């Protein structure tokens, strides 16, 4: 089976327009989360939102598409290759994409096709010179990780030589009102894994990785990935964490990695009471309670379809720089099962990282990233 490497990446967020700017912000404990006075809610709320300048660009593209295109173009610049090749795949990850189109009345059948994710992906692929048919992953909050796993599988099976995997979501009235209706939004910036955690903070970002079957000098190996389902509840996580553990176990088996070989866990860590408890239980089942763990939601908020990509990119640069990023918002432990939450920025020799995500519909995903140097 072909090996798969992450050879280029980009994060476009309120913390910077490329990965290096984002890493600088994280090293300075900067968060994109601010108190927002926006038309999408009657009351001010905390969120990490992109400014309007980041969302503008080509006039025939929507704000959602402009941030995706900016992210993909930056990643492509960082990797010299022949992209208009039929053996280059293009995967778009998003939960709601262009949903803002249907927030405005009246909704005509003509706008239905424009809101569709495959339509959006097709337009972007054409603009970018991609000749293969785009694949859209829309799988709640694991979309970003599942998109990376899908890209990995396409290269492993020999369908493509390289795959551009990109993802984004914008926080619109549709999304905000929905999470608010679940009473899931924290009144303060989110506090992942903390005893006083009180819900999620939403965020906006676009992020891109280029996966390739060909290794480069500083590429990171994507050595395993798997997906599972709780088969329990569509909007509440598993009570036991067994199913997230199943995805972790399968991804580690594929990578040929044991618990003792994992140096960093990049958790989903949404800062809801139930999610963080479920994750802590899964990590306990995997025998990794003492492995340094972070959630990056305190910097970015929950960026939905971009989250798995954003957090994987930060994690793979953690491996490259031997740097453990702290969990912003965390101060005192408060999960049912203990986990080793990173509190301060510190260096450590890092080889392998486990990245996880979970979402509505009972879905869980895990990947393994390895530093080859």
């Amino acid at each position: 089976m072909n090996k798969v490497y992450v050879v280029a990446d980009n994060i476009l967020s309120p913390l910077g327009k490329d990965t290096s700017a984002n890493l600088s912000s994280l090293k300075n404990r900067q968060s994109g989360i601010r108190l927002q006075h926006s038309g999408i809610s009657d009351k001010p709320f905390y969120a990490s939102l992109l400014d309007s300048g980041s969302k503008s660009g080509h006039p025939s593209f929507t704000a959602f598409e402009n941030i995706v295109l900016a992210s993909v173009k930056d990643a492509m610049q960082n990797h010299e290759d022949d992209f208009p090749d039929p053996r280059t795949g293009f995967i778009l990850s998003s939960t709601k994409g262009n949903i803002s189109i249907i927030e405005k009345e009246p909704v005509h059948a003509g706008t239905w096709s424009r809101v569709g994710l495959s339509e959006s992906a097709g337009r972007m692929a054409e603009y970018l010179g991609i000749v293969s048919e785009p694949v859209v992953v829309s799988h709640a909050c694991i979309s970003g990780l599942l998109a990376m796993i899908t890209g990995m599988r396409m290269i492993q099976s020999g369908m493509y030589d390289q795959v551009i995997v990109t993802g984004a979501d914008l926080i619109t009235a549709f999304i905000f009102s929905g999470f608010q209706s679940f009473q899931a939004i924290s009144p303060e910036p989110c506090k992942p894994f903390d005893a006083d955690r009180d819900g999620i903070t939403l965020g906006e970002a676009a992020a891109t990785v280029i996966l390739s079957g060909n290794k480069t000098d500083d590429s990171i190996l994507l050595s395993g990935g798997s997906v599972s389902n709780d088969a329990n509840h569509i909007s509440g996580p598993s009570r036991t964490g067994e199913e997230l553990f199943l995805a972790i176990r399968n991804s580690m088996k594929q990578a040929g990695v044991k618990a003792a070989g994992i140096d960093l866990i990049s958790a989903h860590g949404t800062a809801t009471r139930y999610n963080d408890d479920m994750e802590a239980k899964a990590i306990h089942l995997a025998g990794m309670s003492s492995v340094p763990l972070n959630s990056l939601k305190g910097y970015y908020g929950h960026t939905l379809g971009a989250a798995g990509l954003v957090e994987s990119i930060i994690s793979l640069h953690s491996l490259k720089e031997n740097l453990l990023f702290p969990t912003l918002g965390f101060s005192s432990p408060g999960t049912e099962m203990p986990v080793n939450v990173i509190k301060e920025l510190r260096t450590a020799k890092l080889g392998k990282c486990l990245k996880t995500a979970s979402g509505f519909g009972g879905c869980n995903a895990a990947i393994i990233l390895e530093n080859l140097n």
Partner: protein
Amino acid sequence: MDFLDELYRHYQLGYPKFHKMDQLSKLGVLATDILLNESDHANKYGSDETGIVLSNSHGSLDVDLKYARTMEAGASPALFVYTLPNIVIGEIAIKYKFRGENAFFVFKTFNGNFMAAYVNGLFDSKLIRNCICGWVDYLGEDYRALLMLVETSGSEKAIPFTAEGINLLNNTSHG
């Protein structure tokens, strides 16, 4: 009465949760029930051994439009949760206790090449021993479900799970 509700009665699903679902989930659960009807699937496979890989062209747009119309008057969490296309997979997983690999993809039209490559990859990686895959799409008055059960051994009537085989199945079915 709605066609899906009629099917529910006809096949005597006896699953009260069905009535809380959006149309896409109802379609997916009914299609799965019909697919597995009279098979010994539940006895043949463990809960981690079944994959669910679904695709469509309209995502969750049917319920997105309903949610968008009602969100200002009062957002409903029971409606909002269905505004993700993978919820149909979650509903199927809950009903049949499938905990294995699952994925939801959006394409303009059914993509047999991708589906065959993705699902065969899951078998090759030994992540699953069987898979429910195909197309489940619902928007307004238009709906279509084409589900396949993929196993490593089959009867003489079984179609080989190749891109050619499933594209042919897609082109000749009108359900």
